[in-house]
């Protein structure tokens, strides 16, 4: 029973599975395995699921599965040999970010608060890879971590009412990309060209999901404009 911290029914049809420390790679590996299994398997008892920071929440048909059965099933999945091998590559997503002050409107205040130069802030942001720690809030939104400790800042006291689509921002030990224009309290350091999420009537294509890693690639304002134009609809 060491793999799962605990399983708790939180409503008539919702079970929470605690997988451990949200930023530990051990936890993220469990999440990855479970999400691959959920996506690849037809599970008649599963209605929906959601993952956030060490916690997997499953909406189930309580007439088709008990907590005991679920516990056993999840243990079996976690015991299976890892299927992570050849498709490793596709799990790392490269995202271009323009850190020009036109977009990175909080770079100056971050630089003041962290006592780092603006260039050092930018470099600290793009020079490490991040893993998806949680997805949710609005469609396509992913929490990525952990950022360099020198960049850890609490959220803004007064959230902005409108943050432009594609804005890349930091707060606490995490970084995010805004998939749509929403209010937000994060510090904005740049913008990606195009969109991190797309919709059809039948599905959502979110580039960032559980199990993915992200590498940011700094680009110039000119390149941003070129890429943005390439993404624009006809």
């Amino acid at each position, binding site marked *: 029973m060491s793999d799962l911290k605990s399983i708790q*029914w939180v*409503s008539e049809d919702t079970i929470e599975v605690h997988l451990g420390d949200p930023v530990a790679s051990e936890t993220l590996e469990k999440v990855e395995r479970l999400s691959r299994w959920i996506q690849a398997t037809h599970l008649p008892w599963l209605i*929906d699921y959601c*993952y*956030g*920071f060490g916690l997997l929440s499953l909406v189930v048909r309580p007439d088709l599965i008990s907590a005991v059965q679920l516990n056993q099933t999840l243990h079996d999945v976690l015991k299976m040999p890892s299927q992570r091998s050849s498709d490793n590559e596709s799990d790392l997503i490269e995202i271009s970010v323009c850190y020009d002050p036109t977009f990175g409107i909080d770079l100056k205040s971050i630089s003041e608060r962290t006592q780092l130069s603006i260039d050092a802030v930018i470099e600290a942001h793009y020079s490490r890879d991040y893993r998806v720690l949680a997805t949710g809030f609005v*469609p396509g939104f992913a929490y990525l971590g952990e950022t360099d400790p020198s960049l850890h800042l609490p959220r803004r006291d007064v959230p902005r009412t409108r943050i432009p689509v594609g804005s890349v921002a930091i707060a606490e030990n995490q970084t995010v990309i805004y998939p749509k224009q929403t209010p937000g309290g994060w510090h904005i350091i740049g913008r990606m060209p195009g969109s991190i*999420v797309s919709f059809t*009537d*039948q599905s959502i294509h979110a580039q960032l999901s559980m199990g993915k890693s992200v590498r940011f690639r700094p680009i110039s304002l000119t390149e941003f404009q070129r890429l943005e134009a390439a993404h624009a609809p006809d």
Partner: protein
Amino acid sequence: MLRIKQSNPMHSVQDLGRYGFASQGVAKAGPMDSVAACWANACLGNAVTLPLLEIGGGGFVAEFTKDVNFALTGAWGEMTLDGKPLPGPGAYPVSAGSVLRLGRFSSGMFSYVAVQGGFAIQPVLGSVSTCQRDSLGGLDGQGESLSIDDTLPYQASEHRPLNLIPRRYLDSYHQPLVCDVILRETDQFASDATEVFLNQGYKVTREQSRMGYRLEGDLSIVAERPRYSVPIPLGGIQVPPSGQPIVLMRDHQSLGGYPMLGTLTRKSLGQLAQRRAGQMVSFRAVSREIAVQEFLQCRQFFGDFR
């Protein structure tokens, strides 16, 4: 079809909700009072998963352009068909040209209007449920509520006998409400938190929306703010730093950063949704086993229940 003559932003198309996309941050949506919504379809002999209308707060007028059987359940008030008062929740036949008017509600917040065979609306991500927050669902698929001159075609259907809703299942939303809560095992609260929560009455405040209802009690609950946001279940009771609880409704965000005391049962959640600002509610603990039994009874009775 049904032609909308008068409407407000709390009038929307719903079904039992959008499932399968929570991991991507999509809200469940669906009816605020799923018991009343299921009855609307059930008394027409429809599957309870068919699209219907949720009418929040009255002020709704619509014309049926073709003969059909329709049902009206949930909140009640000045409800008339061609100017004549309707006697109560249930199913009724109407002929082409009839006008349904839902005036001021005297009891409850949300009524449900269904037609035999269901409204024919294109689903988005598996559901027609309108979610303004996510810009999904509704007539245009973009999360818009109903507006004047909208037309809703109904699905051709065989005439099926109409079912009566037994009196004992008709809810009145006047009385003070006692909600059943499945309590959570957690260490994020002061030791007296559950006691404070269960032993006082709460007033429903004006801050009520399809995302959540804020409640107000004399004593606040002391809680620690967790470092990370966690998934929120439908009906979850969040306690922000004010110490006054928020109950999360159908359009709630998928993750939240406040500690949670417990979760309302689905039936109690619908009952709470029907309460207006100023009405009183209190809470009692229920075991998960009893709650599941009741939930499964609803599922079995209606054929589905969410």
